[in-house]
């Protein structure tokens, strides 16, 4: 069985907002994500300075044990209107963001062989 899959939030925060975003993410978003089966791997801030007048890029990586676990996570979250509302509530802290899903290069062939 192929190894874990990763959910990666890459968030460019507005100038002076990185610390506030990270604090809100960890306090408000992360507990529910863990309940849906995600395990927090990293919260990286680039550059590692709490800028006041420039943007930061915050990269948050979660892991799930398998694609099936990814589906179970999203099936739990999708009907929950508070998730979309949470992202809308922090929109004033964010310049732009992406969410991507990835896996280790060594697992790609096996993941695609379904």
């Amino acid at each position, binding site marked *: 069985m192929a190894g874990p899959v990763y959910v990666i939030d890459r968030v460019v925060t507005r100038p002076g907002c990185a610390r506030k975003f990270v604090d809100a993410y960890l306090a408000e978003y992360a507990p529910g994500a863990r309940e849906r089966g995600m395990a927090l791997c990293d919260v990286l801030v680039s550059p590692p300075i709490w800028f006041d007048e420039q943007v930061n890029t915050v990269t948050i990586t979660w892991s799930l044990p398998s694609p099936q676990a990814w*589906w179970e996570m999203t099936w739990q*979250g*999708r009907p929950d209107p508070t998730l979309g509302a949470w992202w809308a509530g922090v929109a004033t802290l964010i310049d732009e963001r992406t969410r991507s*899903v990835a896996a280790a290069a060594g697992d790609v062939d096996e993941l695609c062989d*379904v």
Partner: protein
Amino acid sequence: MFNVTTLIHTDEREPLLAALRDAVGEVPDALVAPTLPGVRNGGDILMHLRFADDQEWPGVQTRVDEILLAPAVTHVDSARYRGDPVGPDEPRGSVYRALFLRVSADTPEDVIARFEADLAAMPRYVSTITSWQLSRVETATGSSAWTHVFSQHFTDVGGLTGPYLMHPIHWAYVDRWFDPECPDYIVRDRVCHSFCAVAPSHGGSA
């Protein structure tokens, strides 16, 4: 081809199936079948009709609409659209699946085009899809103003619930359009995911 796909919710499936099959008996390419376990918002009966053009539909519609007015019918989602399936004329496969979805009305056309291209890419990666069709809806009824129907023939139920769901093209790429946590989220209403068994004589109408 002019297509009419209808998902019917009912507590009296067998008599309704018989009545609908009788009503569409003259349609050369008609699929009227009970849905299989696992549908979501997909109804109890799936009816998929294909016509050479839209002139042939009104006569059939009168008979179908009369049946669908019965008290036993609790809800109907229906879409009319044009297009032809991509794939062999007589695809292998024992399952027909239809996905009804509504793209948010404020979505720019170039974004819709990227979304459609992503959906259309899926059959290249999911080997259990034997034919498929992606069409914009001309007329819709039901719980949403459906904008697209994405249909496929699958090798079997396992091909739908296994490779289609588990290939990364789905969960790591295309699903972002449906995920309220992703910035690309444009399919905001609940979708209809419906599928049924296909008789061997049912041809290439994905």
